[in-house]
């Protein structure tokens, strides 16, 4: 028997069940939390660190998407400290690779851009790194530009967990990490890709896009994948 218990979110007492993540509980309670790598329907990895919350009794900030709630936990989601960190994290995303919105296919349809606007990011306080990154146009339908990839691994998880192809993975480590298809081969040479396009739909930025998309007119629907997962659950 699963037992319900209560936790406090921003001073409000809400009901929670075991195994629920802090993010799940916040959603049910109508508390908005900024997320980026999170995608309903696939596993949570805690890659982007935007959903960090404060929990009474621990110094560490915890990612809401991968932390399960505990009875009587007191959670803060919107303190000044958290707002600062969120802004900083967003700026770090912009400073790492090459995010020049005005020439990006995802301009006005980019989750990173939206979140930055929401958090009030108006300039980047960190030096730009611009590591050498490449573009891959070898797939017949889709493009990949590593200059805009934020390593959220949504594409990796969707391709593995929903499509079952596991074309993508991450190579290397730290700032040299890169998304790869198969053995770091051109995407068009991939023997595993089914060209289903799910990775393209869920990529939150302009790193993956269909070749026929026009600049500034890109529409993506990550919800499509979430719905697909729900529909498949109902079949079995």
């Amino acid at each position, binding site marked *: 028997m699963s037992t319900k218990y209560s936790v406090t979110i921003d001073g409000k007492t809400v009901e929670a069940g075991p195994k629920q993540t802090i993010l799940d509980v916040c959603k049910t309670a109508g508390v908005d939390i900024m997320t980026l790598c999170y995608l309903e329907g696939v596993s949570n990895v805690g890659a982007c660190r935007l959903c960090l919350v404060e929990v009474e009794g621990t110094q560490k900030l915890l990612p809401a998407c991968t932390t399960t709630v505990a009875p009587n936990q007191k959670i803060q989601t919107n303190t000044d400290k958290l707002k600062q960190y969120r802004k900083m994290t967003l700026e770090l995303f912009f400073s790492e690779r090459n995010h020049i919105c005005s020439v990006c296919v995802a301009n006005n349809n980019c989750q990173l851009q939206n979140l930055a606007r929401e958090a009030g990011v108006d300039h980047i306080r960190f030096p730009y790194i611009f590591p050498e990154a490449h573009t891959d146009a070898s797939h017949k339908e889709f493009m990949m530009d590593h200059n805009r990839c934020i390593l959220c691994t949504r594409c990796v998880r969707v391709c593995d967990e929903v499509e079952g192809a596991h074309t993508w993975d991450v190579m290397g*480590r730290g700032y040299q990490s890169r998304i790869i298809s198969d*053995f770091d081969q051109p995407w068009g040479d991939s023997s*595993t890709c089914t060209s289903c396009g799910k990775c393209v739909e869920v990529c939150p930025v302009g790193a993956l896009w269909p070749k026929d998309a026009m600049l500034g007119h890109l529409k993506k629907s990550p919800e499509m994948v979430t719905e697909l997962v729900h529909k498949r659950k109902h079949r079995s």
Partner: protein
Amino acid sequence: MSHAFNTLDQVTAVPPKDDSRIRRITTEINRHHKRPDALIEVLHVVQDLYGYIPLNLMTFVSREMKVPPSRVYGVATFYHFFSLRPKGEHNCIICMGTACFVKGARNVLEKIETDFQVQPGETTQDGKLGLQTARCFGCCGMAPVVVLDTDILAKVTPENIVGTLQEKIGNNK
């Protein structure tokens, strides 16, 4: 911005049938009942036998263990211990397995160490020769065995190995 992608040819090259090291890898995979979580152990064996992890053997491991290609490549590039390229321009791996040891592999190794001023796991100063040791290539009947690049040398002696190596290194100036 060009990127040196790995090519289909590199990835699909079929390892030679008579390379006994393939059997050693298969044995290791079976020892773990093909469990995908034994990937790291299996890659260790590949690196031991080849001095690095050749791309076509990643394909082999990926197929045999049913681990997706990108996962194999991701793991192989995450750990600094693994190397994807041979260390030297030419590479020499001395088998120190029981059979080869008994047949005098130690003397072969020592001869190379002194004549070429190189230690196992390293390359000569000019980068021409990489030296490595391994435990059993799976062809003990040929002991002591030395693998030089893609050639498997049988019944090696301290006397004949130096000439063979010098010829190899000199050939590719």
